[in-house]
């Protein structure tokens, strides 16, 4: 997929609805006389445009190659000096007829497209869905930073401060440690709740530093954060590429 997208010729070819569409494009773009197509010139351009045709699926590739064969045959026929003045003898005649016929329908299709666009501006009863279905699948994070922050703080508040057995000085919570912990968990499970990172300690500072660690890792694309709606469960999961590779 990625290799294809990087190749301009394949992308170009994909854009066309078929060999006639491509041929018509070449002729019209250069303002050539469709009744007097310079076959050698057009054939060369057509072959150039489809040189990556093997990247297309088999059926589509066959369609383009068939047209290439037609063009080459016409080109060969034109080389014979047995041309008369009669139109019927022009080996291009059938191709021209097909091109014009296709072009007419392409225009008709565009007219339909305009009618469709106009029609879609009017809506019937039932257009607006009864109620928005909650998204089921994992979705990319669409939460504002501020909301995320608030959610983390609320979580920290909800966690009961454990009864201190004896007085200790607050130990500094280092972000590097949390980063390690986050990644360690992620190596074990593909997806887990943010809350589970914090609960063993249950203090605000752990929640905040854990969040900072997650944000830092998300920035470096080591993980992805998910939240369906503000103030709901925050999920940590492996980034998509890693998931696919696994």
């Amino acid at each position: 997929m990625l290799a294809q997208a990087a190749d301009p010729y394949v992308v170009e070819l994909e854009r066309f609805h078929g060999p006639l569409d491509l041929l018509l494009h070449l002729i019209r773009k250069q303002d050539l006389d469709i009744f007097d197509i310079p076959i050698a010139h057009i054939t060369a351009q057509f072959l150039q445009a489809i040189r990556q045709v093997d990247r297309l699926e088999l059926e589509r590739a066959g369609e383009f190659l068939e047209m290439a064969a037609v063009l080459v045959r016409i080109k060969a026929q034109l080389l014979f000096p047995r041309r008369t003045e009669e139109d019927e003898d022009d080996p291009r005649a059938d191709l021209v007829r097909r091109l014009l016929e296709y072009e007419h329908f392409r225009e008709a299709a565009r007219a339909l497209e305009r009618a469709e666009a106009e029609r879609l501006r009017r809506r019937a009863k039932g257009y607006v869905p009864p109620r928005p279905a909650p998204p089921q699948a994992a979705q990319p994070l669409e939460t504002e930073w501020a909301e995320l922050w608030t959610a983390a703080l609320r979580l920290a508040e909800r966690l009961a401060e454990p009864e201190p057995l004896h007085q200790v000085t607050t130990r500094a919570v280092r972000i590097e440690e949390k980063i390690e912990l986050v990644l360690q968990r992620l190596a074990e499970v593909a997806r887990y709740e943010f809350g589970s990172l914090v609960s063993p300690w249950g203090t605000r500072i752990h929640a905040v530093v854990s969040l900072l660690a997650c944000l830092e890792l998300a920035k470096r694309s080591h993980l992805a954060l998910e939240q369906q709606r503000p103030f709901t469960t925050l999920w940590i999961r492996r980034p998509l590429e890693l998931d696919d590779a696994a």
Partner: protein
Amino acid sequence: MRPSRIVEALLHASHAPLSAAELARADASLDEEVVERALAELRAEYAREERAVEVVEIGGGYQLLTRPEFAPYLQRFDSVPQSARLSGPALETLAIIAYRQPVGRAEVEEIRGVGAGGVLKTLLERELVEVVGRSEGLGRPLLYGTTRRFLEHFGFRSLDELPRPDELPVVLARSGAEVTSHG
């Protein structure tokens, strides 16, 4: 009950266009002529009151549709974008079927220069085209035509409303009863 109110109730409650004959079936006091008058009355009333909906003649019937200028407000509720627009190949195939119906798959493929199997399947599934018969030609291939759903999708009253760009030649005229076989 005034006929225009009965017609309004039916149009309001219906998802799809209703024909004058269908509307007339609602009550013994109605016939198609009365229904047509009621529809005209409703139209005038909605226009006068600058209502957001209007009675539109579409797909061989009548339907309450929002006026086009409200499209921007409705757009953000589009939860099924899939239902909206057709692809380029689908439109081309539909154009050929619409103008040439009844028409076989071979002719569609000949005109477009590409296979039509996948696109035809999609169009059949979406009920925009249907099988309308078989050709007399070799192998008696299936012939396709457009449906009422097709008219609704494009906002046409009938096939006579198909857009006809000036450059469309005579050969694209509807063939009507004539069934041609394609080799």
